[in-house]
C-alpha cells in the first residue's frame, strides 16, 4: 500500500517548520540569508532574500527538498487581501517522469511507493532533471548526483512518519496511507464547499496519481503547480515513429538518387563508347 502525504494548504500558516525539519533530518546544508557588505556599495546588501513575500528559497533545489510558497493576492481597489501558503515537495508520482528517464536504475520505487534516488548509483547525467514535470529533482554540484525528497525513506521504513509531517504544528502536512489520506481530503473538500469555498484536490489524476497531493482553494498555477502536467515519456512512441519514418524517407532518397544516377551514368557511358 503506497504511503504518501496530504497537504491541506488551507490550514498552513507558513511557519516553515517543515523546511527546517527536512533540512535537519536529511542533513542538507543551509544557504543562510543575511545582510553583508559588498565592495563599492555603502549600504549592507541582502544575500539569499528572494524579495517575494516571505519566500526564502524561491524553489525546490538539491538542498531544499521542501519549499513553502507564499502567494499574496490583492484585489484591484486594494481593499481585500488573501494570503495563500503551500508547502511543496516531490510528489512521488505513480508514473514518475524522473524514474522513467533514468538510464542507470538509480531512481527506484520502494515497496511503500516512494521514489528514491540511490546516491551510490546515480552518475549525474542530469536527464531526470528536465524529465520531472514538476521541476522537483535537482542536480547537486556538491555530490555530483541528482537529489530530491525521499519521503523520508529511512523513517517510513522504520515505522515513523516523514520529518516534515511530524514537525508541522497545524496538521497541514499529513503522512499516511494514500487511500486513507484521500478520504480525509474528500471530506475536507466537502466541508469547504459547503461553506462556499472553491476547494479542489490536486493530484488525483495528474501523472496517474500523486502520492503527495494537495488541497487548493485556487487554480494550481497560483500555487506554482502546472495546470496540465504531462509525463514526458508519453510522447516517446510518437517521437520514435516520426523519427523512424524520416529515417525511411532518407533511406528512400538515398536509394533513388544512388540508383537513378547509376542508370544515368551507365547510359552516358554507352553514349561515349
Amino acid at each position, binding site marked *: 500500500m503506497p504511503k504518501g502525504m496530504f497537504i491541506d494548504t488551507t490550514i498552513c500558516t507558513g511557519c516553515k517548520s517543515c523546511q527546517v525539519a527536512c533540512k535537519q533530518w536529511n542533513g542538507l546544508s543551509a544557504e543562510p540569508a543575511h545582510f553583508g557588505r559588498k565592495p563599492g556599495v555603502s549600504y549592507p546588501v541582502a544575500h539569499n532574500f528572494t524579495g517575494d513575500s516571505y519566500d526564502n528559497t524561491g524553489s525546490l533545489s538539491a538542498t531544499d527538498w521542501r519549499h513553502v510558497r507564499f502567494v499574496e493576492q490583492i484585489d484591484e481597489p486594494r481593499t481585500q487581501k488573501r494570503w495563500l501558503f503551500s508547502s511543496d515537495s516531490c510528489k512521488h508520482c505513480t508514473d514518475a517522469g524522473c524514474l522513467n528517464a533514468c538510464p542507470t536504475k538509480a531512481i527506484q520505487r520502494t515497496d511503500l511507493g516512494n521514489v528514491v534516488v540511490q546516491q551510490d548509483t546515480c552518475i549525474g547525467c542530469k536527464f531526470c532533471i528536465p524529465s520531472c514535470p514538476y*521541476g522537483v529533482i535537482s542536480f547537486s554540484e556538491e555530490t555530483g548526483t541528482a537529489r530530491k525528497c525521499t519521503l523520508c525513506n529511512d523513517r517510513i521504513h522504520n515505522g515513523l512518519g516523514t520529518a516534515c509531517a511530524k514537525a508541522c504544528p497545524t496538521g497541514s502536512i499529513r503522512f499516511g496511507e494514500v487511500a486513507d489520506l484521500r478520504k480525509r481530503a474528500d471530506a475536507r473538500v466537502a466541508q469547504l464547499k459547503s461553506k462556499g469555498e472553491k476547494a479542489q484536490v490536486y493530484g488525483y489524476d495528474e501523472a496517474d496519481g500523486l502520492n503527495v497531493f494537495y488541497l487548493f482553494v485556487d487554480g494550481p498555477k497560483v500555487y506554482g503547480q502546472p495546470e496540465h502536467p504531462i509525463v514526458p515519456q508519453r510522447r516517446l512512441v510518437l517521437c520514435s515513429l516520426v*523519427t523512424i519514418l*524520416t529515417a525511411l524517407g532518407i533511406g528512400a532518397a538515398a536509394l533513388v538518387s544512388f540508383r537513378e544516377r547509376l542508370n544515368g551514368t551507365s547510359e552516358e557511358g554507352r553514349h561515349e563508347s
Partner: protein
Amino acid sequence: MSPEIIQAPEWAWYYIAIYFFVAGTSAGAYFIGTMEELFGSGREREVSRAACYIAFPLLTLVPIPLIADLGRPERFWHLFVYNQAGYPYLNLQSPMSVGSWVLLVFSVCALLSFLDNLVADKIISFPLFSRYYNRIPRKLYAVIGSLAGFFIAGYTGVLLNVTARPFWAATSPLMGALFIVSGASTGAAAISLFLIWRKRNSGGEVERLEAFDRVVMVAELVLLAALLVMAGRTAAPLVSLPFIVMFWMGTVVFGIVVPLWFKIRSRAERFGANPVLAHYLFILLGGLLLRISLLQAGQL
C-alpha cells in the same frame, strides 16, 4: 515568481551539442557509405571508403564529452551495468539508456568497416585471417551499423523531445527527424571534404552524392520551418542575440540556404575548387550551430 518551473539540465553545450553533432555526422556518413556499397554501381567505391574512414575516427572522440559532462564521470559504466546487482541494465523508456547501448553496437560496426577498408587498401594486414577475408559478412554489419547509425543520429532529438522543458516539449515530435536529416547532410559534406582531400572528388559517384544532399537539405529546411511553427512562443530565445547570429545566420542562411543555392547553381555552371570546399565547411558548421542552438534554446 514563475508559475511553472521545469528545471534545465544545464548540459554543457561544448560537450553535449558537440557530441550530438559528431555522432550525427559519423552516423550520416556511415549510412551513406552503406547505401552506396549496397546500391551503387560497385565499380567506384570512393564514397563508401571515405565513409568508413570518417565514421569510426569521429566516433572515437565521442566518449570524451559524454563522460566529461557527467556529475560522476568515474561511474559512467553504470549506464551498462546496474551497479547494485551487477547485471546489464537497459531502460527502454529512456533514450539515454537505449542510446548508450546502440552507440556500442554502432561503434563495433564502424570499427569493423574501418579495419576492413584498411585491409582492402593494404595499409594493415592480418595474415592469420587472410584466408577468411572473402567470407567476412561485411554487408551484414554494414546494414546493422546503418540502422544503429540512424538511431544514433535521431535519438538525441527524441531525447530532447521527451523532456518537460517547454521548447523541447513543444517541438515534439520533430526534433529526432530534424537531427537525422541534418546528420545525413553533414555526413555527406564530411565525405565530400574527405574526397577533396584525397583528390577523388569527381565522377558519377560524387554527382549522386550531391543529388542526394540536395534532397536532404530541402527536407531539412522544411522540417526546420515546421519545428519553428510548432515551437511558437517557446522559441523566443531563438530571436535573442547570440541565437540570431548563431541560428539564423550560421545555420539557416550560411549553413543551409546558401550551400543549397550553391549546389543547385553548380549543376549548371562550374565553380572553382575553393568555393566548393568552403560550402562543405559551411554545411558542417551550420550543422554544429544547429545542435548548439536547439540545445541552448531549451535550457534558457
